[in-house]
């Protein structure tokens, strides 16, 4: 382990090591904010083909690869047919009957209830998660106290192990908790939310701390001179400045929880409590070929808001994902 004075380097390395599908200390921006467009001489057709044409060709092949399943689900969801073998690449009809079934929230397969459950649980857990992580990050960033370094290292050590791996133990713990307070025990959305809430706190704390470190101390100092309390400094200075990073971490946490399957499948057992992932998995495992239109419509409805969020906020999310804005 590095020498104690080598703090920053150590943290950067520990952070990279801590997996999580990857955030690093690497900085990059997609494109500089406003650069004047250089004017290049025109290319002849041959030169264009040799320098740029093949690049576009590869890119277009990749576009087809990316959109292949997307096109199929969009057109099957509009085909009005549940037959898997009827799926086509481009929509041939615009029949919304699959969507009607979906929105009618059938008793046995209440898609809308599942979707709502997923949204509620993911929103509640990721927002509280980010709030608690931001508080802890504030302490690690702004206070000097005994055990600070040890605490940061412990956070990262714990986060090497993804929470869901311990699903057996979490199940047994939730059974016990349910014996005492049934409202937050097994097979409750509140219980699942609490479990999720604990999940990524360590890693998010670390990320947010990195960002807060980049906010100059002098801001707090002058506020403190004016008599501001820690709470005021936190809510009035640090949080507003950290908002972009917090938003990205919130979105990424949300999406991770929205897709979470293992814990939800282990902890939830009654149909009306399922999340979208659990409900759809059970629905589809019954019979693929016969419920294709419905599954497609469900996939479109489930994915659309998230894909839109991604496309709108892509620059911020990308730099968050790859470490830029988060590390600062």
């Amino acid at each position, binding site marked *: 382990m590095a020498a104690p004075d080598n703090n920053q380097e150590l943290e950067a390395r520990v952070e990279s090591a801590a997996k999580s599908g*990857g955030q690093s200390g690497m900085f990059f921006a997609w494109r500089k904010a406003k650069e004047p467009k250089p004017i290049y001489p025109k290319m002849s057709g041959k030169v264009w083909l040799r320098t740029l044409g093949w690049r576009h060709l590869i890119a277009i092949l990749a576009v087809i690869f990316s959109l292949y399943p997307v096109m199929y689900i969009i057109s099957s969801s509009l085909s009005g047919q549940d037959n898997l073998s009827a*799926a086509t690449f481009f929509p041939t009809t615009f029949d919304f009957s699959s969507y009607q079934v979906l929105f009618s929230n059938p008793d046995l397969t209440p898609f809308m209830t599942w979707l709502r459950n997923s949204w509620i649980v993911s929103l509640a857990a990721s927002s509280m998660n980010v709030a608690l992580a931001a508080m802890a990050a504030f302490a690690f960033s702004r206070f000097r106290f005994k055990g600070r370094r040890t605490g940061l290292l412990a956070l990262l050590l714990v986060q090497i192990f993804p929470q*869901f791996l311990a*699903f057996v133990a979490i199940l047994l713990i939730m059974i016990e908790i349910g014996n005492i307070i049934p409202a937050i025990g097994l097979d409750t959305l509140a219980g699942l939310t609490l479990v999720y809430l*604990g999940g990524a706190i360590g890693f998010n704390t670390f990320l947010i701390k990195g960002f807060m470190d980049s906010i100059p101390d002098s801001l707090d100092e002058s506020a403190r001179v004016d008599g501001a309390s820690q709470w005021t400094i936190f809510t009035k200075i640090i949080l507003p400045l950290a908002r972009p990073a917090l938003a990205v971490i919130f979105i990424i946490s949300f999406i991770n929880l929205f897709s979470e*399957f293992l814990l939800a499948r282990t902890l939830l057992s009654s149909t009306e409590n399922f999340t979208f992932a659990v409900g759809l998995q059970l629905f589809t495992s019954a019979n693929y070929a016969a419920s294709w239109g419905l599954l497609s419509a469900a996939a479109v409805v489930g994915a659309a808001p998230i894909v839109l969020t991604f496309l709108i906020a892509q620059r911020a999310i990308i730099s968050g994902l790859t470490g830029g804005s988060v590390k600062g």
Partner: protein
Amino acid sequence: MAASLGNWGTGFWVRLVLLALLDAVALWSSLILIADGSVIMFLGLVIGVLFINWVYLWPRTEALRWITPGLVFMTIFVVIPIIYTSYVSLTNWRTGNVTSKEQTIDFWEAKVYVDPEAEGTLFDLFVYTDDSGDPDGFKLLLVNEEGQYVYGDPRLRTETAIEDGVEDEGTFASGEEIPPAEFNGSRLLTQREVFQLSTQVDFKNLVVDTDSGEIVILGLSQGRVVQASQRYVYDEEADTLIDTVENRVCSPGEVTATKGNFVCDDGEVLVPGWVATIGLKNYNTVATNPLIREPFLRVFLWNFVFAFLSVATTFALGLLLAVTMHHYRMKGLRFYRSVFIIPYAIPAFLSILVWRGLFNSSFGTINRTLAPLYDLLGIDPIRWLSDPTWAKVTVILVNLWLGFPYMFLLATGALQSIPSDILEAASVDGATGGRAFRKITFPLLMVALAPLLIGSFAFNFNNFNLIFLLTQGGPPVLGADIPVGHTDILISFTFNLASNAGRGNNFGLASAITMLIFFLLLLISAFSFRFTKRLEDTYGGS
């Protein structure tokens, strides 16, 4: 740092109210825990709550006040589960061994013995419901030949006797309809409904207590008064169960195989037993039992191959695209990037479920698209999901689709962060094109990306969603002693062990394998640590 007991602002009162609420809930919970006899949980709760009170009431705990809320949840739902997993891995916790020893003894002591010789009065059985929808909301009416009846709540034989189980007793007048369609406000169930109820309620284990003894239910239509006796008696001093019927003594198993169960002196093992620690037996089983070791090794090996190929294929494609698009005159980058991000943006479980449909070998679009090719080559359509080898290919292909956008974004970012003067200097020295890429660009990329690639390896190492939603680990390996498939990775294998209802849950063994995964992750992290350090020493200037 002003905030402390001396500060009587709003913050202090908010804190005090929240603490009071927490303490009230904690007090109430601890009473239940004491009643249940859960000593460890009780102690944990007390220590945790005292800690929280200390943090928020003691003056000089400034930093901890900010950390504690997150710390509490992280402790309960991440740290304790990890520790608890290691405990469970040392136990025999599985179907048949899920309760405490006291509960097991209670279970056996509640077992009654019914002497087949001593027959009592026979009753006809009718079932009534209050239509409350509660599965326990039914009552039994028992009528004997003379029209005498007993009406009341049954109990399971394993439960302790209920005092006021009989709601009504009497005799039907001759000529009265037996059974009445309605009785004491409850409705007679049709035979069909009774049959349905019998799928949820074990009728043969029901008993109705009356003053003159127990009426034991014999099936869906009859019950009999019997003199039932307690079969097993627990001798506390000797810690043995004495079987009064077969005159044998059953004592707790000594060897690891029978630990957690009573073993009678004629060799019979009484199931259910209780949760007992059995040391390293689960680890031993994985290492030595050939029927478990073979599937485990298969899964273990494939897990590494899968994680490696996942990273290699996604990184190769992502890098190829990034390099292709990295040209100062390339147009439409924003469009391409927006399209490439879509596979990444769609929640993975949705796209995996969709891919599973597309890969369906008889109806899926992929095989329909490839049909002309199959005809041309004169081969059978590929069974993407049910052929052991092709299923592995499918898993990697789907993962390629899911994972290449992330790699593309990473590689693009890293490419842009390479200072152009380095490449210019290289071209002056005569290194251009492929050579410059191999000697300069690629090594620099690896320095920046290696930790992220290892992170991606660790992520894919446990990519449960992909495997479980796409193939459910299948196709199954035939002839294995435990449920295992050709595409199973350790975590999906563990999930099957823990939750496969058909063959019972084996929490102990599942936890042992989870501990192995933990250990492997530690190794991967340690490796990442050293590897990135070496790369930086070699290439990183700063």
